[in-house]
């Protein structure tokens, strides 16, 4: 594994006037992994990606992609040679046909793979002679995907890739991402479709209001995050459960639900010393982690 992270940012910020789209984002995305970038609409995901690719200038902070600085125009062109990108817009040139678009795109990249492009063209059932402006949204998305995947890039960045795809299309997309990853491409994709991220991501970064809230591996979430449902013979006090590892606590009558990121034993021990009559531990899915983290915004990483 290479020591240089695929993407690295240091206090990256973008302010539009007083409005902070991205605020002090410090991120490190590893090589040879599938990293999911989760967040609500307007959390700053697209703006971050645009800064990484030189489309938007950061207000402050810095970043590198594949070791090259994002704010230097010459290095930005360099890094784009090894990065494949699927934008949120997924719009291409209406005046070109599918075939012309593919030929056009292929001319810019030394790592273009024609056999892969041909097979994806068949798999996605795209009509080569049709003008792009006459394609449906789903077909346009697939074409944009084909252009990003018919290469052997070091890094693949996708912004909401499954938008506009039907369930079969989504399945094909996930298979393609997994295949690309197994060929050594680092994949960084933003999404607000939690199930997709949960299935294929190795690492998940959760952002909200321009800040990074969480940066975890999916294995860690599956292994350590727990939902502990407790019942007491009296109305319990939340303060008693302010233990390390507790993300948040909710009480309702005699019941208490603890959402923890680890340290389950100590929490259960505490529950027993407080005479809990029922202790049930359940695993927690990425959706619960996301909702729990984003709602309780005080968990921002420094």
């Amino acid at each position, binding site marked *: 594994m290479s020591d240089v992270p695929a993407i690295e940012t240091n206090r990256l910020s973008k302010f539009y006037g007083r409005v902070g789209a991205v605020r002090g984002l410090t991120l490190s995305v590893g090589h040879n992994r599938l990293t999911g970038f989760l967040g609500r609409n307007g959390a700053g995901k697209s703006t971050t990606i645009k800064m990484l690719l030189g489309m938007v200038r950061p207000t402050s902070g810095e970043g590198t992609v594949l070791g090259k600085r994002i704010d230097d*125009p010459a290095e930005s062109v360099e890094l784009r040679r090894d990065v494949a990108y699927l934008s949120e817009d997924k*719009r291409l040139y*209406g005046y070109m046909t599918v075939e012309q678009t593919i030929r056009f795109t292929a001319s810019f990249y030394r790592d273009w793979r024609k056999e892969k492009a041909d097979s994806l063209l068949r798999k996605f059932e795209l009509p080569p002679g049709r003008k792009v402006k006459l394609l449906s949204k789903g077909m346009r998305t697939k074409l944009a995907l084909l252009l990003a995947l018919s290469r052997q890039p070091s890094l693949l960045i996708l912004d909401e890739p499954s938008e506009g795809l039907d369930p079969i299309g989504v399945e094909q997309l996930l298979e393609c991402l997994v295949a690309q990853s197994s060929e050594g491409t680092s994949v960084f994709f933003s999404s607000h479709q939690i199930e997709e991220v949960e299935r294929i991501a190795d690492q998940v970064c959760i952002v909200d209001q321009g800040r990074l809230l969480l940066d975890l591996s999916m294995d860690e979430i599956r292994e350590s995050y727990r939902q502990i449902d407790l019942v007491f013979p009296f109305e319990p006090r939340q303060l008693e459960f302010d233990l390390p590892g507790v993300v948040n606590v909710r009480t309702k009558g005699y019941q208490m639900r603890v959402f923890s990121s680890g340290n389950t034993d100590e929490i259960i021990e505490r529950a027993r010393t407080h005479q809990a009559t029922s202790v049930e531990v359940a695993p927690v899915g990425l959706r619960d982690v996301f909702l729990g983290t984003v709602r309780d915004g005080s968990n921002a990483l420094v």
Partner: protein
Amino acid sequence: MLWYKAWMETRARFLFSLCGMVALPSYYVYHEAQGVEKFARLDWYYHSLHTGHGLIAAMWVAAVIFLMMGGLLREKAVGASSFTLALPVTRTSLMRVRILCGVCQAMALAVVPWMAMFLVSRATGMATSIYQAVFHVVLLAGGGLVFLALALLVSSVVEGEYTAPAVSFGIVFVDAIMLDTRGFGAFSPWGFIVGSEYFDRKTQLLLGSIPWVHLTVSILLAALLSGIAIKAVQRQEF
């Protein structure tokens, strides 16, 4: 393949303009030539050539504005700018190709229609001097670059799919109206390309030698406007 893209983007507009600009003025001149028999006054015919040139010039400016419609800002309105900007090319080279493609097309649009008109005049037996033809073409091609650069600059700062050409037309319209304003005539680009300063009402011909100084100034102005356009695009956020 940036040239391919620039060509594909403007191909329809260019060919449409070329056909229109070859057909209309040539037909007009041909039609006028039929009437010369009746009046037997050559200057009447030369007047029609001058009018033909006016037609070509007006269509040329319109065509150039339409050809310069495009670029990253227009793609932004449509949603394709992310795709272009992700390509491993600098914004400068994108602009460069767009400008050069536009200049080549503009030159073709200045020369070909006049050649057609010239051939028609020969065919109808009206002897127009080559010098007159060249004078007109040089005025249009050299002096008109300012309009090209203007359309380029407007398309680089005004957002929206059709707003930029609308603004360009507005500016040209103002220039054309102010042509008759005293003192402005000498500086008006539109006045320059139709040759109002060199036009002699008696002979209906352009007099004097080709005004190289004015042409150079015009071209430099066009270069300046283009430079500003490139800078604007470099600083733009998408």
